[in-house]
């Protein structure tokens, strides 16, 4: 699953994430992060057999976990299937299918919106 972890200022100095990775069978990927001494947030993707246990652990440790409910959508009316967005996507969430149509994958998207901004016909929308 993907989730935003929100760190309060007092959490910034604690090694909760290190403990999570040490003690649970999870694979953990940081997609975006913006943390400074005043706190901050981090977008993560967490997988593995103990992912749910791990999340419960970091929530108990004081990190606010909010699973990402994001919908990335391509407007079929507006999209001309040029593909300009494909090479801009940092996580390969956009691909060209066998019929040369552009496909957007909701699961992979991290919401950076580079595609939204760069689309010549403004056909991709990210709703969080």
């Amino acid at each position: 699953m993907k989730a935003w972890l929100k760190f309060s200022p007092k959490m910034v100095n604690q090694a909760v994430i290190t403990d999570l990775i040490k003690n649970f069978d999870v694979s953990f990927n940081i997609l975006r992060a913006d943390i400074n001494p005043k706190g901050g947030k981090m977008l993560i993707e967490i997988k593995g057999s103990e992912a749910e246990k791990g999340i419960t652990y970091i929530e108990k440790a004081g990190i606010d976990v909010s699973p990402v409910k994001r919908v990335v959508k391509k407007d079929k009316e507006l999209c001309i299937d040029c593909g300009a967005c494909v090479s801009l996507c940092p996580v390969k969430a956009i691909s060209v299918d066998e019929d040369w149509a552009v496909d957007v994958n909701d699961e992979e998207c991290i919401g950076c919106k580079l595609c939204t901004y760069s689309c010549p016909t403004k056909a991709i929308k990210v709703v969080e």
Partner: protein
Amino acid sequence: MKTIEEINQRIKDGDAVVVTAAEMTQIVKEDGADKAAKDIDVVTTGTFGAMCSSGAFLNFGHTDPPIKMTKSYLNGVEAYSGLAAVDSYIGATQPSKNPEIGIDYGGAHVIEDLIRGRDIELVASSYGTDCYPLTDLRTHINIDNLNEAIMVNPRNCYQNYASAVNSTDETIYTYMGTLLSNMGNVSFSSAGGLSPLLNDPYFQTIGMGTRIFLCGAEGYVIGEGTQHNTEVQRKNGVPVNGAGTLMLKGDMKQMDHEFVRGATMPKYGSTLYVGAGIPIPILNSDIASKTAISDEDIVCQVMDYGVPKRSKPIVVETNYKELRSGSIEINGVEIESSPLSSYKKALEIAEELKSWIDKGNFFLTNPVKLLASQGSSPGPLEIRRQTILVNEIKSKALIIASPNDDIRDVAKRMVQNNVNHLPVVDADQKLLGIVTSWDIANAVAKGKPMLKEVMTKKVVIAREDEPVDVIARRIDKHEISGMPIIDKNNRVMGMITAEDISRLMCARNREEGV
């Protein structure tokens, strides 16, 4: 071997054999060009790409009392009306006059909205004459009540085109789309083996009067497009970069919005996606063999758009098969590639044109004059006023600092020499950072004694051989007031500041008597 008239008779009889350029590649590979030339009558091509050099002539009809328009705006986008009284030309790249809308709605969007049948606000003004007394008007028009809406595109269907990368360390926004820093992606824009002028590379069949598919309607080739270039290097019989171009014409009242689209390249401008398809009559086996060209055979040069010069350096040569695979290799690194033109739409266009001919609704024409196949190459525009390079500017004597200098010494040096910027260098005079008088004030306020604690390490630089105009744009873009000048060996040679540039402009204006 065959004539256009014979092919048209077969189309009429429902006997013509029509295939797309993609299918033809396979047919010639299997059967050879001689047999293909006997079997196949027409090959259809297609492309759907951003073609900035597009626009339309509109005739609004006369008002009562009449007006001789000198300015006209369509949904806030200016159309050129310096022709007669009620004719205007709306160009695809003209932005909205409203700065808050700007390039997000331009001439290309007006053209799409017209073709979609939407109402468009027309505002026009004039100086008034005895025969045209009206000086202002505001009304709504749509495609049905225009007398004529004729798309005339001065330069479409580039025969081939370079693909683009960006070697600088920041993202740039170009007509080739968004180019990520440090060659983070490659953008290309050609339908490759399906593209019209790559299937008739020596213009043996296409010329003035060739009937074509244009944005869902019947259109015509008027002649060579602007910047038509016959002198580009060829490999496998086709040019390796932008070469031949077409000037096209079509009736917008017959067009289909599925095959034309207004678009905006972010931070660049509006542009029109034009759908064009050209039928190639297979008159002999030579023409058949040329239409067999595949993506793999068409070389495409990758150019560095990070260099804002007319001739951009070629980074590597690739082909459309590699580009379309999703990544190409540059200097041993896999770089993701993606198209700016729609291959899906290009295929649809080739299929649509094929079905028109199959159904006997579209006949081929004998061009009045073939496109020029030699002796045509566009020249550059020379600016009479000499371009001034960075190293030609008289700048102040170079004052530098070392990272371990004491802040107070640096402050003293700045005051004594009356400068606001100091490059920080190492023993070899190589750049390490920069400090401004603001940084010094900041250091004093925070009680930091050493220069290296307050200097900016990421420095925007100017090269000795860059034009000053490029530096002015860089200063503006980064909202800075000056930058160090660096030589080929990365040594600091001096500083160039906004003040130097304004002084230069004043001197230049004085010389020219502005």
